[in-house]
């Protein structure tokens, strides 16, 4: 777990892209998104609740995602998020930018 805080700072700049990436396959809700982030990183990374919701708000205002209330048969209704066409475009663009950055840093350090 040591050194994670430095890594976290680097990752934080990509919070929105990370969320968009989780929504590319299917609509999802807060905890499920965080769970899949945890799973993909073998438990090394996850978003704080507050970070997650403020990113949702920014993305929704920018029309990158939409939210709707799911119809759970059991228990309470969850708020689901769906990626928009615009969001998919942003995701592709961010991914390209990241590939570029990665190549650049790799050749420098």
């Amino acid at each position, binding site marked *: 777990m040591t050194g994670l805080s430095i890594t976290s700072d680097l990752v934080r700049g990509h919070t929105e892209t990370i969320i968009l990436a989780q929504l590319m396959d299917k609509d999802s*809700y807060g905890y499920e998104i965080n769970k899949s982030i945890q799973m993909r990183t073998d438990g090394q990374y996850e978003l704080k*609740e507050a970070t997650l919701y*403020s990113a949702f*708000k920014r993305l929704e205002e920018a029309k990158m995602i939409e939210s709707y209330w799911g119809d759970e048969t059991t228990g309470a209704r969850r*708020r689901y998020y769906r990626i928009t066409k615009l969001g998919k475009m942003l995701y592709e663009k961010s991914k390209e930018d990241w590939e570029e950055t990665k190549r650049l840093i790799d050749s420098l350090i």
Partner: protein
Amino acid sequence: MEEKLRIYLEELFANAPKTKRTIELREEMYLNLKERYEDLLKKGATEDEAFEIVKRSVGDMDRLILEINEPGPAGKAEIEKNRRQSAKFKAIAVAMYILSPVAIILLGTMGLPIPGLVVMFALIAGATSLLVYNNIMHPGYTKMDDTMVEEFREWKAASAAKQEKKNLYAGIVWPIIVVLYFLISFTTGAWYVTWVIFILGAVVQKLVNAILNK
């Protein structure tokens, strides 16, 4: 245990404005934290351990609550646009009020008090309807959310609107008195006595105010 989580969330949101947005957010968070908590129990954590981990996963709530309630860029632009338009309408109306007696003075000295009167009333009518239209289109203060503070502000805006109505009325009455003064003076030529109209006008206005305030 669910109760403990509920209480914990109540504390987190204790200082948050009671808006639809924060209540929805609290519900959303509650469901997510509950699921996380239940998952942790399934993985073999004790209740206390699970609760601690859940608490640590929350992060900076104060900032989130601030962010969640501020209007987005689209909302802000809309408010600014309305404000500008409303200011423009008011400026035009005020200019019309100020200019309205000019017509009667000018045309009156040219011996045409009646056309002067007509122009003046047209200007006053135009300015008043502009203000009324503006008040309907852009109410003084619209509630951003449903908190007590917002209700207080709305009440304040309402009493300000009442005051404005009174001012509007005074703005109409005095030009009329001026018109009457010129009209009667020109037709009767009794300039030495017609100034009494102003004193009578003041009395009438006070009376009307007293009745309106009841």
